[in-house]
């Protein structure tokens, strides 16, 4: 952790701590990133939006604002905590402000407002920061390599864990096979039956709609896996208060498989 250069505790002749920020260059980069990332987020759906959107919500506004503040020169950890917390605060306060202004809180307004806050803060920082008296900390490749090994080991195992979890979750979902049968009254005299096949294979169903044994609809339908089939029928000749039974069986099987009914209004 580096000491605060404006601190009264610092000896007057003590050397200034190394400036680890990028000064004007960083402000410029933040400005470009804010505009660019907002543009990417507003564009057509693409995989880069994962990164650009997350950066706009979780990092960039806080980082740009922090560049304007007189803070003790923090280390990366302190900076990370402040950047994320400030970014989330900006997002929440921006959302409240949009709502207060009766504007929609949607992709467009969020992207523009977050880019505007980040861009404005970066511009102010750009105007205020001194010309490049920048000394970048040299990257110690050996130190990076030392940290890389445990990080890599954990990343591989963590990724495998999540992959396995998703795979087993998907497999469990696919094992929960079923057929959905539903009926919907469209008008006083029309109704529609819907069969949805979630059995994991193509199915051949027998569908019968009847009133007191008189069939209104009798049909064999083949429904592909994960597909739905809708069939309409008329209730015009059915007396009010009568119950229309709709039975679904697997073709060539006799026992009722699914059963719904509709009471004629």
């Amino acid at each position, binding site marked *: 952790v580096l000491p605060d250069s404006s601190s009264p505790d610092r000896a007057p002749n003590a050397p200034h701590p190394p400036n680890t920020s990028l000064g004007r260059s960083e402000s410029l980069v933040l400005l470009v990133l804010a505009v660019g990332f907002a543009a990417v987020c507003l564009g057509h759906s693409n995989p880069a939006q994962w990164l650009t*959107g997350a950066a706009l919500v979780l990092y960039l506004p806080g980082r740009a604002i922090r560049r304007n503040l007189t*803070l*003790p020169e923090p280390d990366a950890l302190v900076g990370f905590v402040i950047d994320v917390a400030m970014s989330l605060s900006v997002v*929440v306060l921006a959302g409240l402000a949009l709502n207060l202004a009766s504007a929609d809180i949607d992709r467009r307004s969020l992207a523009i407002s*977050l880019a505007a806050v980040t861009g404005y803060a970066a511009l102010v920082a750009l105007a205020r920061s001194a010309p490049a008296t920048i000394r970048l900390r040299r990257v110690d490749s050996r130190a990076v390599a030392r940290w890389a090994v445990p990080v890599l080991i*954990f990343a591989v*195992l963590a990724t495998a864990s999540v992959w396995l*979890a998703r795979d087993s979750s998907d497999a469990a979902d696919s094992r929960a096979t079923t*057929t959905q049968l539903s009926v919907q009254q469209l008008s006083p005299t029309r109704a529609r039956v819907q069969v949805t096949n979630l059995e994991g294979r193509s199915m051949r169903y027998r569908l019968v709609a009847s009133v007191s044994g008189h069939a209104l609809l009798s049909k064999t339908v083949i429904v592909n896996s994960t597909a739905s089939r809708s069939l309409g029928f008329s209730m015009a000749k059915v007396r009010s208060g009568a119950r229309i039974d709709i039975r679904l069986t697997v073709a060539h099987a006799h026992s009722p498989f699914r059963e719904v009914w509709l009471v004629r209004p």
Partner: protein
Amino acid sequence: VTVAPVRDELVTDEPGTEQPRTTVLCVAATLVGLGDLLMSVADARGRSGLPWVTTMYWLAILLLFLPPAAAAVWLRRDRGAHVFLVLLLTVGLYLVKIVTSPTNFATVDELQMLRSFNDLLHSHHLFVVNPIVGSYPRFPGSQIAIVAMTELTRLNLSNSAKIVIGVEHLVLCLALYQMVAIVLDDSLAGFLGVLVYACNPNFLYFDAEGSYESFALPLAVTVIFLLVLASRASEKARRTLLGLACVIGVTVCVSHHMTSYWLGVVLLGWTLLGLLRRRSVLISGPDLVPWLPALVVSGVAALWFVFVAQTQVRHELGPVVTSAFHAISQTVQGHLPAKAPFSTPSTSSDLNDPVVLQLIAFASVAVAMVLLVGGLLRLRYRRARQVPILLLLALGLLYPVTLALRLTQASTETSSRSSEFVFFGISVGLAVLALDRVKLNDGILFGRHRSTKDRRLGPRIIGGAMLVGLAVLAIGGIVVGQPPYDRTTGVYLANADVRSVTVTGERVATWAASHWPAGTAYASADITNGILIGGAGNFTPQTGDINGRPVSYLFDSPIFDDVSAGIVTGDKIRFLVVDNRLAQEPSATSNYPLQVSPDAPAHESSRLPVAYLDKFDHVPDVSRVYDDGTIRVYDTRLLLKAAARHTKGS
């Protein structure tokens, strides 16, 4: 030095210090990674109904907690290693929640929040009424952030929530680590603070959910961390840090009620202690009176309560607190038998922890109390009497009080929801306890020769005891906070939070979203299907009482009588959702008030009789409009029309 005087940096130029560090960290990373992998395997086996899930689960928990702790003690002077271990521990534990529900929202709280997420996503405006939990839309911070993530990344809501809450989890742990490390000037103390906090009953699951408290708590801890930074900064930087604390504090106030009230109390407490410090030599540490953040946070929290969320907060918290006090007073007076602590309401032994685990839960409470008392005893040392330490230890004193609330079922939830706030005191207790006496006295009282001995013996003696205590604390915390059936995934269980959320329920929710008119009122025989449907579409689940009868009477009664019809028409319930599994599987959390017969075995009372669910088949004017073999949906439109005609006629 004005800020963050953590001086426990590794002396990197000592020969041979780097290689052991890399090796130790690699071993720790491998073991934690294997812990996550083992957890994932346990979940996969649970989904398939295979055995050995519980054994694998506890082994994974030990792998997640113990290696980072051992590595931190091993590398006790290495700040860089401690930071890495904090990150490793946090991510490793967060993955437990991810692998349990990798694709969707899975807990009841998340599904209830889903309604508010969807409302904001579709209406583009805040404060849309959530009929499931009224206070969610009144504290919209998490909804704005997670919906913003969804809008900008085009990820689904579940993945957006996982990213936001995951990053905030890191923020919480890093802020806590830095805070303790800076105050006590000891990196190991910072790590131990995080480690013990991660053992709190809610850290692993509840605070990792995509919900409003998980969003607000890390920000609240950040505010306290900023005050710690401010107390050690120059005047100009101090003003800036206090300003930042105000802004983030306001965000907390609009994000979660209890967290904002807790933060307000902490900041007011800090202000009070800060003022006392100027008059008393008993309190040590830097001089800071954070009156501005205290005023802003407590003021905004109060104003938000009065003008925005009063009704909803009272409606949500009022009955919980009232019933808790009532139940406790009844128990104390002997009118109500005390509940066995750390057990579920179910009478089934399969749904409760074995005696060994319940004993470990009791032992974990004992360990927590030892840490708390040990930390309090260390207050005789000047360095331990700093304002943040005093504040957090004072919060820890509430821990035994909250445990007493576990004596009744009604007050257990209050106890459970407070652990993430009071456990900061326990974590600081260990952090102070682990400091050697030289540091506590700034090397004056005991002399250097004593310190050398302490440093040699400390890691070996205390380290071993600490690992055993930690294992007890971690396992006990989970036993206390999470019922056994909800720790891993598994086959369906009725009324069992995560275990009740199945693809079958999600499919009926999807069907309802595409077939029901907006605003439709419905009643569900089980809470999970009700919340799934309410979260997926703009529908209103009917619960509570109507005409002096609970809506659940519809499903708890053997016949559909006039009372049932009155409930349907009175609450304008258009659809009734019935899950056959309630009659096939035991309920994890409730014993139905009915009895099949007086001589029926106890476990039968946790299953709903089939006839109670089938009765709707025989009600005239009720149509069965959906059937998937497991869940059936009945349409009461004709009943409602007849009632409307009757009302109009009369």
